[in-house]
């Protein structure tokens, strides 16, 4: 079974489980993978029908199923993703005014991968993103790029490195014209421009907002339109600085899932590097989490202290007295208990499983507000 067939199967399962919105979004991803304008138009029709019949789920399912059947006859050739798009070796950047030094940072960025760039404010997340996008110069190290086609000029290289800053610029004029302008500049065949634009609008859930003005959009939808414009550029690398900053919790999850799904395209995979303060959400979708502290780069669990490899770290929020909690947790071989003013951090040997901690807490009727295993999360660097 090909990857595409597997994805179609997943979509069917989402529909079978009545996860209509998720299934619909995945269906659109599959449609976009085909790069077939006929399929795009069918998908756009389906979107239009869905928006005009929001209550008719059965009708929608039937139409979606028809589209799925049609998609089944398509073959999608997977794009090559083995070589890194960006190859950064020991990149450093020093700000002479503040003395802040970023790096040395070494990383390879691959297509179809999502890289979450986390860290407290002022630790170099934006700087690293801008350096990767060649928006910012670096002092030492090497930065290489490898794209599907040969780059002939610096300007062309910059045009391939799509960087979206946290504060996007205002759009003027019609939103749709702005999107079409991108496609037109990227030499999209004229008959395909309208279709591709509407497809992207549909994919990013902007169907009902396409005729509004920029000033009439909420911050979240502005970011979605910016993403739409960005994705229409068919980037091989996408560098997003705090794309979740103005989104509500639900929107954050949806956007991240969408980004992950879009970047995971079979025919046009994208390497996504995004910075965010939303640790949980970012960690959830990232293939690699990059933690920056004082400009020093740590990838996932490669922090110099090896606590994550040797210990179980549980973050606990409850109203129980510290002494009581400490006594109870000792039954699960507690190594140490820290309180950072908001939550407790309980350290256990690696041999202690999470369910053992839960069992002990439950047995002593401890009323938990929140519990999370952060042994492998960069959150442990923030809260400890």
């Amino acid at each position, binding site marked *: 079974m090909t990857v595409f067939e597997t994805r179609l199967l997943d979509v069917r399962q989402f529909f079978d489980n009545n996860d209509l919105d998720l299934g619909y979004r995945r269906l659109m991803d599959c449609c976009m993978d085909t790069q077939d304008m006929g399929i795009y138009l069918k998908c756009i029709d389906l979107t239009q029908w869905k928006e005009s019949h929001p209550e008719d789920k059965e009708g929608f399912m039937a139409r979606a199923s028809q589209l799925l059947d049609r998609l089944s006859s398509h073959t999608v050739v997977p794009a090559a993703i083995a070589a890194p798009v960006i190859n950064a070796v020991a990149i450093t950047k020093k700000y002479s005014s503040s003395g802040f030094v970023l790096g040395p940072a070494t990383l390879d960025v691959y297509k179809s991968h999502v890289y979450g760039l986390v860290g407290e404010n002022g630790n170099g997340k934006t700087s690293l993103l801008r350096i990767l996008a060649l928006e*910012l110069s670096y002092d030492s190290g090497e930065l290489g790029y490898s794209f599907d086609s040969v780059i002939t000029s610096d*300007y062309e290289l910059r045009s391939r490195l799509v960087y979206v800053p946290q504060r996007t610029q205002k759009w003027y004029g019609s939103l749709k014209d702005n999107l079409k*302008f991108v496609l037109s*500049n990227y030499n999209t065949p*004229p008959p395909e421009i309208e279709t591709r634009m509407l497809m992207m609008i549909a994919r990013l859930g902007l169907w009902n907002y396409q005729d509004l003005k920029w000033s009439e959009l909420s911050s979240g939808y502005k970011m979605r339109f910016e993403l739409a414009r960005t994705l229409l550029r068919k980037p091989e690398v996408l560098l997003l600085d705090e794309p979740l900053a103005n989104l509500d919790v639900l929107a954050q999850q949806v956007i991240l899932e969408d980004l992950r799904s879009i970047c995971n395209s079979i025919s046009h995979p994208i390497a996504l590097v995004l910075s965010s303060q939303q640790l949980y959400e970012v960690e959830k979708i990232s293939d690699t989490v990059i933690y920056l502290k004082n400009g020093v780069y740590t990838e996932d669990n490669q922090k110099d202290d090896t606590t994550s490899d040797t210990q179980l770290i549980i973050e606990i929020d409850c109203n129980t007295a510290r002494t009581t909690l400490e006594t109870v947790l000792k039954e699960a071989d507690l190594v140490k208990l820290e309180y950072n003013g908001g939550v407790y951090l309980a350290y256990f040997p690696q041999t202690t499983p999470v369910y053992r901690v839960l069992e002990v807490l439950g047995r002593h009727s401890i009323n938990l507000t929140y519990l999370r295993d952060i042994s492998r999360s960069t959150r442990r660097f923030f809260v400890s």
Partner: protein
Amino acid sequence: MKSIIARINKSLLENYPLVWNTKLVWMLSIGLGIHLLFFLLGVVSLISPTILQESNAIDLYFTTGMVLVGIILSVIVLTVWLLAMFRNNAFKNFYPQTAATLFYQFLHYLVIVFTCITFYYSYTLGLQAYTAVTYTDTRMDQEIATINKVAPFFTHDIRKYTVDNAKYPSPLDQLYCDRNEKRIDLSAPHYKFKGEYYQFYSLISKTILYDRMAIDEGDFADFEIQTAVSDDPSVDENTNPSGIGTIKASIYKPNSIDQEQPVDPYADDLYLFQKRKGDSITMYYRKAIVDISDFVKTGEPSYFHYSDLFYDPSYMPRDYRTASYNDYGEEEWNLELSGLEKEIIAENHALLERADKAEIESLLTDFLAIATTYRIKNNLTVEPWLELVYHPSDFRIKGLINADNYTYDKRNVSRFENNAAMEIYINEMYSAYYLDSEKLKTALGNISELKRDNIFETSIHIFMWITFVVSLLIFMFRTSGLKPLIFSIIAAGLVMVFIALIFATTGFMGGYNSSEYFLTIVALLILGSISLSGIFLMTSFKKVVGGVLMNLTLASFVPILWLLVILISSIQSDACDRQPIGESDYRDTCFELLRDASPACSYAIMVLTLLFIWMYSRRIMSWRAMPEG
């Protein structure tokens, strides 16, 4: 209509994003619409012929306030355009671009700006179109012929009818009439009227060629100079071997000559007046008194003596005839009648000789019809006018017609201010009739100019360079952004101050007196250094500095080329001045780039600048790709 616009916009956006972004199609449509409007305004402006009676009708765009309307419309249209265009910027957003696309963008700016600032052309072409259609060549030829035939009967100015004006028949046209009472030889044939004396002389002439080298050597350099002398001014002196002699000449400073000061009047009291032509001056001297009684009917003012051409069809209001002087500071003594002048004078003479009342009446009737067409103010009717002029024995002046309807024209008296008898005579001669013939002449001149003037000849360069400057500023803003543009303007100001300081300092020290090329070369070196930095080192600096250099390079290219032209012209001019005097006019043989080919230079510099911007676009793209910090 809205859907058509939307469809065109969609098509442009999908097929030609650059054209869509620069709004080329819409701006040209709007611009051409406004041009059409101005053209129509130009056409209707001349429906009333009284407009033609004001001088310089071809400049009606500037004199009627249309220029303000044009400027306001240009500003509004260009502002709206910029607001619409600035909505999108593919280059700024790193959308795929080529150097050619960037250059085409600049060309679009040029076309749009030029279209939106040149409403003057449409308006004036409207004037010209209306004139060409209404005042056809055939019609004008007929009307001008009639007017010139009737012109002797306008009878505004007694001075034009005194015997000294007589130029027909020959040899009157080759004689000089001396009116200076002190020089009149009362024993020889002469005329006297109301205390005024008239005595006619034949002439001899001497022609002097300048030697520019001698002029350069100093003030009043005395030197021997070959001259050609002829007693017949109609004969080319240089080809007439008789009378060639050598005279001693004093030469004034070159600047005195440029100001058309007369060459040193000779101590010879036979000298009358002189005429300049090219690098030669011909001086005229009296030769012998001539008795003209066989050629004139009376010594009193008469229509027979009128020898002017009222309107010369080749006359253009902007023509400035070469001035010449005589001892008395009076009007030019016209010895060289044009073919048309001779023809008209002869025809008018023949008309008077025929003394055909009906013919004259018919002419006056035709003229009054023409005057009515052009709405020339007058209170003349055929019969009293005919009565005033028709005195077939000698066509003496029996009454004068005022030149306007305000009051009796006393200007004519001024020449005779010390002659009470003449003053009284003139006052008595004025009738109650008036004819504003000057307005008619102005109208004819305006029509002639409107039909013949090439309005693009000079002004095209002004509009071309205004267009270039405005377009370049927009281009700089679109490519480099606002911050580098502002810094560039400040930097350009500083560069100019720096250059001015160098000039002032050197001037104070007297440094550049030794070399007239100094200022040009210094300015060239400074601007050249900036340009070379902008071409080769732009990406070696920080992006903002590079942007400033880039803008300065774009801005200095044109001044550099003009400075080169000035430098070359200075060198050529010096070389010309060093040339020895030749047989032909030095101006015809000595080429100076700026003087002789400035329009070609202007076009060539524009083409070279466009080529430069096209090639430099690649560097602009490299600058754009630089990191921001």
